[in-house]
């Protein structure tokens, strides 16, 4: 009897250890693609990243060499346009959710924002196509920026709300007790206290849309040359990577890897920066 119970105990412990081990293996499998992608990015991309990549325009079909400078610049321009749409709407909307509203109403708004976050990004491209490209009969940077901005809105709204809710209510009370009006309390005291969080939320949203390709396919469309007018098509890094990747030319494949490496580095730089900015500082005891 005793031996049997002991065996059972051992078996249960073994099961537990196996489960832990199995789960660990699963975790490794989840990480594996990351390692593989990075490995190949570095291997295939690093060699192709050179000075001309950052300074030259794409060369005509078949001619070797050239770079993606217009795509890099284009991506920044699109991000700027996206921010013009995404930041005011997202931040102010987040302010409403945190500072005003009813419990019920806000729950529903949050729900809608979260559902909106799940809309495939290509759909935004289709919507903006119908909204702007068809009307003005041309692809444009404006259209691309708007599509990316739409994607940013629910993201920024939620991060802003979260950060504002973290501001202790004592500050609001103290400000109101001084006879400062509500909106000034929110803007000058609450938002100012939460500013770092708001900014990092915006940065993360920008990093996220910087990698989006689908919504740009038929809004910004891409451009092999410099864009001189925001009403015209504009190059973007992800678009260029895509069109080079599916092309039949080896040289373009090389450049696609280079572009991918640059894009990933940019995105990761922002993520690491955000992590750095939001690290827990050691609290000094007064």
């Amino acid at each position: 009897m005793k031996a049997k119970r002991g065996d059972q105990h051992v078996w249960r412990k073994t099961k537990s250890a196996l489960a832990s081990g199995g789960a660990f293996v699963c975790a490794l499998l989840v990480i594996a693609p990351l390692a593989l992608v990075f490995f190949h990015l570095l291997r295939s991309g690093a060699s192709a990243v050179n000075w001309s990549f950052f300074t030259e325009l794409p060369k005509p079909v078949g001619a070797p060499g050239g770079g993606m400078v217009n795509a890099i610049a284009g991506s920044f321009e699109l991000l700027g346009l996206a921010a013009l749409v995404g930041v005011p709407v997202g931040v102010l909307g987040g302010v409403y959710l945190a500072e005003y509203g009813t419990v019920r109403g806000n729950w529903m708004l949050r729900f809608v924002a979260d559902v909106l976050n799940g809309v495939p990004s290509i759909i935004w491209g289709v919507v903006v196509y119908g909204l702007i490209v068809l009307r003005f009969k041309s692809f444009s940077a404006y259209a691309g920026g708007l599509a990316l901005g739409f994607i940013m809105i629910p993201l920024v709204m939620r991060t802003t709300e979260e950060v504002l809710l973290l501001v202790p209510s004592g500050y609001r009370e103290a400000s109101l007790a001084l006879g400062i009006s509500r909106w000034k309390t929110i803007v000058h005291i609450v938002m100012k206290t939460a500013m770092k969080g708001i900014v990092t939320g915006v940065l993360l949203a920008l990093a996220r849309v910087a990698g989006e390709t689908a919504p740009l396919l038929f809004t910004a469309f891409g451009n092999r040359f410099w864009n001189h007018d925001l009403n015209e098509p504009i190059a973007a890094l992800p678009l260029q990577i895509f069109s080079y990747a599916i092309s039949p030319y080896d040289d373009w494949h090389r450049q696609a890897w280079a572009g991918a490496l640059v894009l990933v580095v940019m995105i990761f730089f922002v993520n690491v920066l955000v992590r750095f900015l939001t690290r827990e500082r050691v609290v000094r005891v007064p």
Partner: protein
Amino acid sequence: MSGMPLAIAPETPVARSTIDRMAPPSGVGDKIFKWLTLAMALAVVALVFLVGWQLARGSSLAIQKFGFHFFTTSTWDPVAEQFGALPFIYGTAVSSLVALLIAVPLSIATAVYLTELAPIWIRQPLVSLIEMLAAIPSVILGLWGIFVMIPWLRTHAFPFLKQTLGWTPLFSGPIYGVSMLAGGIIIAVMILPIITSVSREILRSVPDLQREAAYALGATRWEVTRIAVLSYAKRGLFGAVVLGLGRALGETMAVTMVIGNTPQIRASLFAPGYTLASVIANEFTEATTDIYLQALFEIGLALFGITIIANLLAQLLLKTMGPARSGAVQ
């Protein structure tokens, strides 16, 4: 009239001079700010309607012309102006299913590992790595898919599968590399991070009381997880899976680059396929006729519809996870 009438003046000259220097508060500022922020918050509601409206408007003629047959016809021939969306529905469904079959067990196991089983020191680094994976854009994963994954699948994995499982229709037929299976795998990679992190949140929200009760009964680590944590978290975990499904349905770039983009319905997973999102991505700018474009808009409408449903369901499941039916630990 606002404020205390200054006729009932502050009693000291200092007080009065200070009050006098202040601007009288205008309730106007408060009102404007409140309505402004409300308008911005309502933008999310407006956006949902905007999307629905644009998609419906852009596909109205096609809807009229094809009716419900659009979703049951499997011929997609733009030249002959025959538009049937069935291949894409099939492709989206199968690739998403394959992706879930691969990703869900891995993700949930990883989430369990990270919250219950892993040593403390390993948790944050792993979480950070998974967040990094989430940050990789779809097009870059697709790039890797074309030049690394597909060749490997074509020369190693697929022939092996064909050898061992070739007797089933799923793994029969010619191997090209680009395939439904490749699409499913790449979608799995893309949805692993989100299912893992949402599951993690769900598991973390299980009250410690549940775990402690189970430990107190002498359960092993694994038993605590299975009995006290997972059963409590069932609903939320299901929500995480549905969220992943929503992502899978809408995944565009990486899939387009590895699935083969052929509008056909085949039993074999080695055969190239086509998804709702991919056909839009590939053919939108090539749509030369109005009806072609309208058909693509209609596909967009369908895609919007199914992802909204999936996300609605997911959010409901995630946000309403409550205590287990009976409070006691079985």
